[in-house]
């Protein structure tokens, strides 16, 4: 009986630990969420009463709408471009052996390891040198560089679960290389491609530092938020924070669902996906 009791103790301790970790992570977000509905000007307890005034204020602010528009345009274009590039890089890695491949792979995975301030500064210097800075497409270029490695990692993982003879089997059954790509490789990678679209969109959506450097007057939403904070502390920040959080989480959760779904692959291979992706999600 003794061992039974001590096991239960460890069990409870671990549960508590997990609970505390989640509390630590989510408490500030929850606070922001709660205060976004609070009528008071400053976030303090006790709460002053439920109100939608800050939501109305945000709704009425054309600057925020402009930031949101920029964020959405950048997010959609970035996710499409980064996923296309990431998938191409992952397929190259899967299909070909060539001289300098390890260098190619290292370079392809490098961007997320560079501190964002350095990346942002470098992007600004480079883009202004070729007169591409200060516009929405500057943000897009910078974000594609940052996001493509995530897309590649996701597609690569999926390709590693593929029976290596699958593509050759398609050729052998009369499919040319392009047809095999269209009818075998892409359908097989479909869940990973959608997951990559969502994840890269989420990364672009709430990326701040690099966008701050390169966006100029075409600020994205996170950059606008900093502008607010510098001027005044307004509960409108809580409203935007809540919105950005819900949008990003929706995208990440969608990606996780896609990656966790079996989608017809042997059960043994799909288990590895969610854990590994967890590492790369922002």
């Amino acid at each position: 009986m003794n061992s039974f009791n001590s096991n239960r103790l460890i069990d409870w301790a671990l549960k508590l630990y997990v609970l505390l970790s989640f509390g630590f992570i989510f408490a500030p977000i929850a606070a922001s969420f709660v205060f976004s509905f609070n009528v008071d000007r400053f976030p303090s307890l006790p709460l002053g009463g439920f109100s939608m005034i800050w939501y109305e204020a945000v709704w009425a602010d054309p600057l925020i709408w402009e930031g949101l528009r920029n964020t959405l345009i950048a997010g959609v274009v970035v996710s499409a471009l980064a996923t296309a590039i990431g998938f191409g890089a992952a397929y190259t890695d899967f299909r070909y052996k060539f001289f300098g491949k390890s260098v190619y792979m290292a370079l392809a995975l490098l961007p997320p390891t560079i501190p964002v301030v350095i990346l942002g500064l470098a992007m600004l210097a480079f883009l202004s040198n070729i007169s591409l800075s200060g516009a929405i497409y500057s943000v897009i270029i910078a974000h594609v560089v940052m996001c493509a490695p995530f897309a590649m990692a996701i597609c690569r993982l999926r390709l590693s679960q593929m029976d290596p003879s699958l593509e050759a089997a398609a050729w052998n059954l009369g499919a040319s290389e392009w047809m095999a790509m269209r009818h075998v490789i892409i359908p097989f990678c479909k869940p990973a491609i959608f997951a990559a679209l969502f994840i890269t969109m989420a990364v672009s959506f709430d990326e701040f530092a690099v966008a701050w450097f390169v966006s100029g007057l075409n600020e994205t939403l996170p950059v606008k938020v900093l502008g607010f904070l510098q001027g005044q502390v307004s509960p409108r920040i809580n409203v935007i924070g809540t919105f950005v959080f819900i949008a990003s989480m929706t995208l990440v959760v969608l990606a996780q669902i896609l990656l966790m779904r079996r989608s017809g692959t042997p059960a043994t291979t799909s288990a590895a996906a969610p854990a590994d992706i967890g590492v790369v999600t922002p």
Partner: protein
Amino acid sequence: MTDQALVVFDGVAKRFGNFVAVEKLNLEIRKGEFLAIMGSSGCGKTTTLRMLAGLEAPSEGEIRLDGKRINDLPTWNRDTPMVWQSLALFPFLTVRENVEFSLRMRGADKAARRRRVDKWLERMQITEFADRNVAHLSGGQRQRVALARSLVTEPQILLLDEPLSALDAHLKVRMQSVLSNLQRELGITFVYVTHSQSEAFSMADRVVIMSRGRIEQIGNPQEIYRAPRTKFVAEFLGSSNIFAGEVSNVSEAAVKISTPAGEFDVVPNAAKPLSKGNKATFVVSDDRLHLSNRPPEDRLNRLQASVVGEEFVGATAVIHLEGAERIEIKVQKSHDELEQLNLEPGAQVWVSWRPDATHILPGE
């Protein structure tokens, strides 16, 4: 079966960097035959098959299909479908869509596709699973889907790369009979790559044994079993005792070969004329050796050996013995016969065999 060649390998070699996978291969595959290519892993059998399928390009030589050079024909234009070791079924497609795949890639119209697919689903007895995902089928059912998928274009040749290796023993035997019946009924050429002697010998009309990128022997199963050409083949088949030595005397009826284990009478082999002083190797199958505790008759080949141990095989047992000069000998006997003898490890016994139970290896 006709003797007309469907496929000709003419001096075909395949190198991967410095590694020679296949060396100057000359092989004719006849129309309508069941040919097995057998060998241990890395012997070049799969590379040979992949070159025929168009998945590897030969480094040298020419491959002809129906008299036409196909070296540079991409695999998708060949119609040399292959059944893969992993089966390589498309996991995101249903059974029907898998079978339909090659017709769709070749642009067959919808009605024709449906007719052809229905026919092959029926024929492979998988109609009831047509709309199921292939991941939800058993091993035997998946095998049938793979066969239907390859045969749906009704090709003149089917390539099989160890397709039964993942099945359990019982299912394997059942699929073997499915395959040989199918081949007989369709009358098309099957080229079957395997490392399993029982698969090759039970199904094939002719067997090719390969080793280190070269053909060691081609022949029908009985021929190969009774008259291996080289030491490699004899060892690969695994049931032979091999003796190597020098010819000490030649007469009409018998050749005397002197080996480290003793001097033995051997029947001459027309394929290997020998004269005194030649090196020669002969084999005796393990079921043709006799054991006794008393010395056998003089006219028999005989030697004394000590018992190393006994290996239980099922209905029979294999006794491992060691003769003079540490020569290894194995003898296969029924349990009844063995009970009559003293076979304690270390015991001395007489091993004997008739001269006509021997076979001189012509390739050594």
